[in-house]
């Protein structure tokens, strides 16, 4: 029984870091896509992509300081005699509370980082990506709108996945406030386009073109 319990604890300990990193990456990606009203669950993102993006929120001061703080608390509880027994008795509750607190810190950091990245797209400071789109057989409003955006260099890349490129076409008159989102598939077809309107986050004044 002791052996089984130990094995379960060791397996959980081994899986927790990977789950934590995966959560961080997913928190960032879902927050970033959410800034453009793209449902992250509809986007086919590989595990490798999620893990790579995990370092964006993990590499922030709030997360690093929280982890450092929790490490200090753990070391104190392990080596300061008066704390050892009470911490041993309440260990599971304390661990859960620490994990929940860390997850919230990661989520907030992910949201802040996602907002910064989304601002770059709205301000036109991301890659001008002209995805290859096949002209449709008959007149199509989405394609005509896309062609106008491409010709006037108003397209900006939001995210590229293995099967779809998400692009933002910034409006020519109100570029930081209104845009059209295009989802272009790998086969050159426009999967859909959607009007987007942005909330003022106090960052709009410097938007030029």
């Amino acid at each position, binding site marked *: 029984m002791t052996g089984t319990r130990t094995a379960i604890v060791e397996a959980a300990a081994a899986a927790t870091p990977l789950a934590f990193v995966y959560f961080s990456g997913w928190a960032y990606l879902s927050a970033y896509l959410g800034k*453009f009203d793209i449902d992250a669950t509809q986007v086919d993102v590989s595990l490798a992509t999620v893990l790579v993006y995990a370092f964006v929120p993990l590499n922030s001061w709030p997360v690093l300081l929280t982890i450092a703080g929790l490490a200090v608390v753990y070391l104190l509880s392990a080596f300061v005699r008066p704390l050892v027994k009470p911490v041993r008795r*309440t260990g599971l509750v304390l661990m859960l509370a620490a994990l929940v607190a860390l997850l919230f810190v990661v989520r907030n950091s992910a949201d802040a980082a996602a907002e910064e990245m989304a601002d770059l797209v709205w301000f036109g400071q991301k890659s001008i990506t002209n995805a290859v789109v096949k002209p449709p057989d008959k007149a199509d409003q989405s394609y005509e709108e896309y062609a*106008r955006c491409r010709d006037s260099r108003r397209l900006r890349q939001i995210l590229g996945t293995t099967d779809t490129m998400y692009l933002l076409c910034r409006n020519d*008159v109100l570029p930081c406030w209104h845009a059209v989102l295009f989802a272009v598939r790998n086969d050159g077809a426009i999967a859909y386009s959607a009007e987007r*309107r942005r909330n003022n986050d106090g960052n709009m004044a410097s938007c030029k073109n």
Partner: protein
Amino acid sequence: MAIWQAARTEFCAVALAFVGWTGAVLAQDLQRFEAKIDIRKLMIVDGPYELQGSTGIYGFVVARSGGKATFRPCTGPMVDVDDNRLKRTKSTCADEPPTDGNPFSVGCGGGVEVPSQVKAAIAKEGPTSALGTIFEMGSTSEVQVYATYDNTAASKIKGIDRMATCGDWNIGFDASGADIMHFLSKDNATTGNYGDLKQ
């Protein structure tokens, strides 16, 4: 055992405090968005118009000069555009696309109330007033009419981020959600459509 009881008591205290704080924040938010909008200041505009060559951008014209129109969109800052880029529309600010998922939104709150003095002033001057004319009721209940759209008038509406359509009125809000100007189309001023809105 004593430590468990102490920890449990502390946990309950923290949970209660958190619930109380959350409730207070929610109540404050609800109260802010349900306040009635008092029309003591308004501007006569033309519209609504749709910006051609764009999708879902609606707004109003506050001034015209030399083929250019000063366009006050429902969302975003005021811009000068060629008058021929504006097309009359029946759509209102309520027909704009949704925002980027941020839950903050502006609306008609608890309704719109127009003081009788303001209604009388609109009835007298509204139909013949130029675009950009401002009617403003001071503390003495006298309504001042500023007939010229100049830099002073422009500065009064510069801080508007977005607008909401409330009945015959279009309300301009700043970034904090405060209503800083109320817009009435010349058509509504002429036909007498500038009444209260009950919610």
